């Protein structure tokens, strides 16, 4: 495949990862807040918590979103290096904070927003490194 096509499909799948990964995490967070603080000391409690988790709609939406993320992730990993894909998708941390702030009304302090900006700078530095350094099948 030509490198421009490879780049396009790589960026497209990373976009999927950046949207659906954070959305999944935020939905899981919303679901677990509905379930409440988990304390598991006996098998009965474990079964009760598992039941509560599996009957929470937001958890299932979160899982569906994370599966979408995971499929995109698997596909991109079949040609691009792990150490390229993982940092490139780190912009997802900014996305998580935005979604947590506006979907869940979590308080996000100024220092935390600065941290997110620093993460984006790191992503920019990492984004220009080669996509693949090992040969497939080696």
């Amino acid at each position: 495949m030509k490198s421009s096509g490879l780049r396009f499909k790589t960026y497209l799948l990373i976009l999927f990862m950046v949207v659906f990964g954070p959305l999944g995490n935020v939905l899981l967070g919303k679901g677990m807040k509905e379930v409440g603080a988990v304390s598991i000391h006996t098998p009965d409690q474990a079964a009760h918590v598992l039941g509560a988790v599996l009957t929470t709609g937001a958890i299932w939406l979160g899982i569906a979103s994370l599966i979408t993320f995971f499929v995109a992730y698997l596909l991109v990993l079949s040609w691009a290096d792990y150490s390229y894909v993982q940092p490139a998708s780190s912009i997802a941390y900014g996305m998580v904070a935005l979604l947590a702030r506006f979907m869940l009304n979590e308080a996000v302090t100024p220092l935390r927003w600065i941290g997110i900006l620093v993460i984006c700078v790191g992503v920019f530095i990492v984004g220009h490194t080669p996509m693949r350094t090992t040969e497939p099948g080696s």
Partner: protein
Amino acid sequence: MVRLILYVLVIVAGTLGEVCVTRAMKTVGEVKAFRPSALAGVILRALRVGWMWLGLLLMTVAFFALLGILSLENVSLVVPVTALSYAAGTLAAATLLGEHVSRRRWAGVLVVCLGVTLVFLGRS
């Protein structure tokens, strides 16, 4: 203490799980066709690789540990803290997968980690 154990599980099991899955997908080879039938074939081939199952097991452990922490803490704290897996992941990619990690990339990862630290310090 419970939180610490859960964080360690999310980071270590999650990172090792991703490394296993990557190994499996490199065995499967580059995915070139995106038709549903071709994708189904890719998934079936991936499921015949042992590394994939080990990876999925580790990622399942990480997933339930994540659910545990999310019941105790805010998403906007939990997810940035789990980004400590960047250091673990790059280290694992360099050592276990034999990927060449350039100085520039290490620097980028360090900056990302610094940002993650600030996010952690900025707890309300």
